[in-house]
């Protein structure tokens, strides 16, 4: 019973209060699952590649000094192939801004070779993913996302039903190897094992045991074949079995897909100024005052917005 939320501005370019709105919606959804919470926020496009690197799965006090050493080591590794414009560390995250002209997958591999728990959680020119174990109410107090401005964002609050509760299994998921592509999912992809097997045979590496990870891999593959986000999501309705409502976002588009049986709720509103989507209407009402209509997205529906 996870909760997902999405906000996109239609009038404020990349200066909308994306952090504030997505956090508000997530807080309202927190009762749907307090196991982990996260946001994928899209700010103004940077000429640098932004990386959020997870240093460890769980942060213990004793590890704090070692983490700085690990962070320095990763920074050195990255510095050998890219120009580093900015480095900072908050809790278990290392955040890097780099100029890098090569294949993002190579950069990711270099970073992740530093330690077995090290993982690049997001990479992109406008995307930044921040997530943590626990309820969404703690997210802002740790990472101060409330004043994040941008064009759109998606969020997730999780009730774990199958796989582990740790940072790697928290959502939104970045689609590894695909800068700026992120997804958030509520439901179960029941043919996940078969799909995963197929992708693994083709050389894809999976980071978690979470069925939702397949969505990012799938959409990433379809986008790389030249499909638009909407086309990729439409295709997923044919290829995914199970119950799902999911959100997917790229640097300049965002959309939702709902399974053909309509097993999972998804409420949405679209006004002249914004689009808001959430698992429960109360999340939309909590974040946006005023008069507007909210309706349930139909079963088997895909809708995507191009910025």
């Amino acid at each position, binding site marked *: 019973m996870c909760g997902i939320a999405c906000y996109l501005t239609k009038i404020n370019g990349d200066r909308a209060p994306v952090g504030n709105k997505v956090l508000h919606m997530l807080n309202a959804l927190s009762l749907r699952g307090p196991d982990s919470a996260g946001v994928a926020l899209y700010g103004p496009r940077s000429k640098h590649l932004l990386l959020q690197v997870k240093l460890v799965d769980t942060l213990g006090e004793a590890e704090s000094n070692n983490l700085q050493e690990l962070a320095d080591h990763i920074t050195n590794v990255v510095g050998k192939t890219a120009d580093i414009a900015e480095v900072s560390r908050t809790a278990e995250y290392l955040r890097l801004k780099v100029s890098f002209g090569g294949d993002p997958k190579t950069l990711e591999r270099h970073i992740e070779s530093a330690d077995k728990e090290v993982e690049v959680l997001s990479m992109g020119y406008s995307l930044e993913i921040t997530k943590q174990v626990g309820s969404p109410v703690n997210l802002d107090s740790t990472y101060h996302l409330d004043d994040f401005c941008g064009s759109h964002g998606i969020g997730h609050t999780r009730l774990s039903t199958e796989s582990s509760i740790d940072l790697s299994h928290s959502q939104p998921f970045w689609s590894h190897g695909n800068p700026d592509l992120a997804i958030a999912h509520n439901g179960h992809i029941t043919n996940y094992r078969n799909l995963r097997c197929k992708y693994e045979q083709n050389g894809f590496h999976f980071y978690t045991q979470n069925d939702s990870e397949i969505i990012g891999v799938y959409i990433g593959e379809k986008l790389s074949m030249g499909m638009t986000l909407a086309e990729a999501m439409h295709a997923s309705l044919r290829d995914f079995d199970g119950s799902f409502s999911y959100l997917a976002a790229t640097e300049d588009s965002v959309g939702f897909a709902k399974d053909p*049986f*309509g097993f999972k*709720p998804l*409420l949405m509103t679209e006004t002249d100024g914004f689009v808001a989507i959430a698992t429960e*209407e109360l999340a939309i*009402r909590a974040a946006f005052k005023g008069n507007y*209509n909210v*309706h349930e997205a139909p*079963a088997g529906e895909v809708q995507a917005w191009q910025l």
Partner: protein
Amino acid sequence: MATIDCFDKTVRDVNTKLRDFVSGGKNDIHIINPESLHNLAVAITKAANITIDGSVGYYCAGMIDGPTIRINGSAGWGLAESMLSGTVRVNGSAGNGAAAAIRDGTVIIEADAAARLGVSMKGGLVLVGGNCGYMAGFMGQKGTLIVCGDVGAGFADSMYETVCFVGGEIAELGTDAIIEKPTEDEYSYLSRTLTLHLPTKMEAPGFAIDRFKKVISGRKLWNFDNQDWETWREAM
């Protein structure tokens, strides 16, 4: 008029207060600032006029017996689920499973209803001014389901004796559902019902009562017959 402000109250507080008002004989109750809270006005078992000013969350007006509840907004999943009697009117749209398993009473959704509208209804009237989603009327046992607009796929699947009327297009009939032309009596029933509950629909340009189709069970699934094996296989 009695008013309950949901601001800063839990659902339990709101429902307790509402129940106190109803059992205290208050007949006209307004609930304000609902902000899409779940489970509002459930299990109210006495007659009363309850107006909710704003959208409601899941399972609003479930298991009621007698009250008239008006929602000035939209409703989430499971609106009026398992109601016994009374009237529920939403002037916006409703989420999945509206009017599921109702035994009697009237549910009016002025805009659209999502998937699984009126599934397993055992009586009563469900009336939708707009369109409805997938699988409406599934396993309906009795009662009447009227949708003025279009209906989604799997419509009226595996029904018993619910009678459905559709003013728009049917995306796809469910298993064992058949279309019939309504009788003159049924057209006149539709006119009376729409005039009573959705008069603006009747006055809308282009509205024509003779566009309505009647959908009922073909009764092939009522008793097992080897010759109907294909129908059964499809239904399963």
